[in-house]
């Protein structure tokens, strides 16, 4: 009985070791898994109202710089007017009391 037990233990140990090494080799040569969230922008597509896909958060595209946006607009669209333009701010305004009492604040 004792030699049988010893043999069984050795057999279990060897098969575990061989399976582990084989699994390791298999995984190391396998393709990388697809990311959980796709990098689909969704930026230009309308959001479908109440659809199942609307419940999946998306990752958004990187934000372009505003200067480059205006530059691209004027370079690329001769027919359509740019929808954004830089505006001057008043350097002389400050915390002085002449500013109107109604303020934009912001919620």
């Amino acid at each position, binding site marked *: 009985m004792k030699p049988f037990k010893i043999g069984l233990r050795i057999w279990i140990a060897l098969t575990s070791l061989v399976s582990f090494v084989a699994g390791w080799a298999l995984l190391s040569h396998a393709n990388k898994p697809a990311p959980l969230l796709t990098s689909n922008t969704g930026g230009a597509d309308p959001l*479908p109202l109440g659809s199942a896909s609307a419940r999946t958060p998306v990752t958004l595209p990187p934000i372009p710089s505003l200067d480059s946006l205006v530059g691209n607009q004027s370079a690329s669209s001769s027919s359509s007017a740019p*929808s954004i333009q830089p*505006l001057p701010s008043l350097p002389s305004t400050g915390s002085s009391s002449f500013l109107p009492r109604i*303020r934009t604040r*912001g919620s």
Partner: protein
Amino acid sequence: MQYHEFRAMNTSVLLAGDGPVASVQTGFSLTQKYIEECEKRFTRFSEASELSDLNRSNGEWFEASQDLFDVVALAMHLYRQTEGLFDPAILEALEAAGYDRSMDELRLYGSAASPVLVRPRLFRFGEIRLDAERCRIYLPRGMRIDLGGIAKGWIAERAAKVLADWAQVCAVDAGGDGFMVGYPPGEDAWRVTLEDPLEPVRGLAVLKIPPGGVATSAVTRRRWKQGDQEQHHLIDPRTQNPAKTEWLSMTVIAPHTAEAEAYAKSLLIGGSNEINRILSLEPGVEFIAVDRRKKLWGSPHSRPLLQM
């Protein structure tokens, strides 16, 4: 011009009116009362509000007052107009980000919730159903909504009409959501200070606002710390997280305040990527935005809105 300032809807409310003192003061008093009544009905921070009753309806049809029905129907219209960028069904995400009590309480005591690791179930506002004939609203089981900004805009405009009965030239400004009636004496527009979002005591420009609505959304006003993370209240419905945007503030001028509020939010959340699309949905909307370097940007016809 006479002014009256008080606190309501977790913000500072400013009333302005021109006319005989007794009449304008009566108007101020009635308007304040009206705003306080509306707040009780639409706040999500009171269990006794009608909005909280609606949020507890849990998959059953809810018989609403005409006012609540009107605000929800208006919100649905603006949800569709902005193709989902304005979405009052982001309440779960807003609370998950730590905005689970009023801003006054949050400023006093901070956010109790640590960052939520389990993502809440995501609802879209388009899932609700409205029964105009019987003035009923159906929220899917588990959905709760926040009417915060749009209700504030709707209340400001209604309140301005209450005040206009006592002062023909008047304005109501509820924390950046305003409605102007008539022109101030001798003026061609209402002068409004465009606040520096980072230093609110300073002004970046003076705006010339015609009668109608104006609303400003800013990522700098309602902020709090949740653990180590800095959070703000403008949730991007696409990511269900506080919006990552290049704008510090977005001011929109439109005929109605609730509409201005929804577009301000949508333009701010959408960022510069979405400007063309949003403006094509509502060509009458004008905006003035402040970017992270405090530079001003505006829609094509916004320049005359700045006092030079």
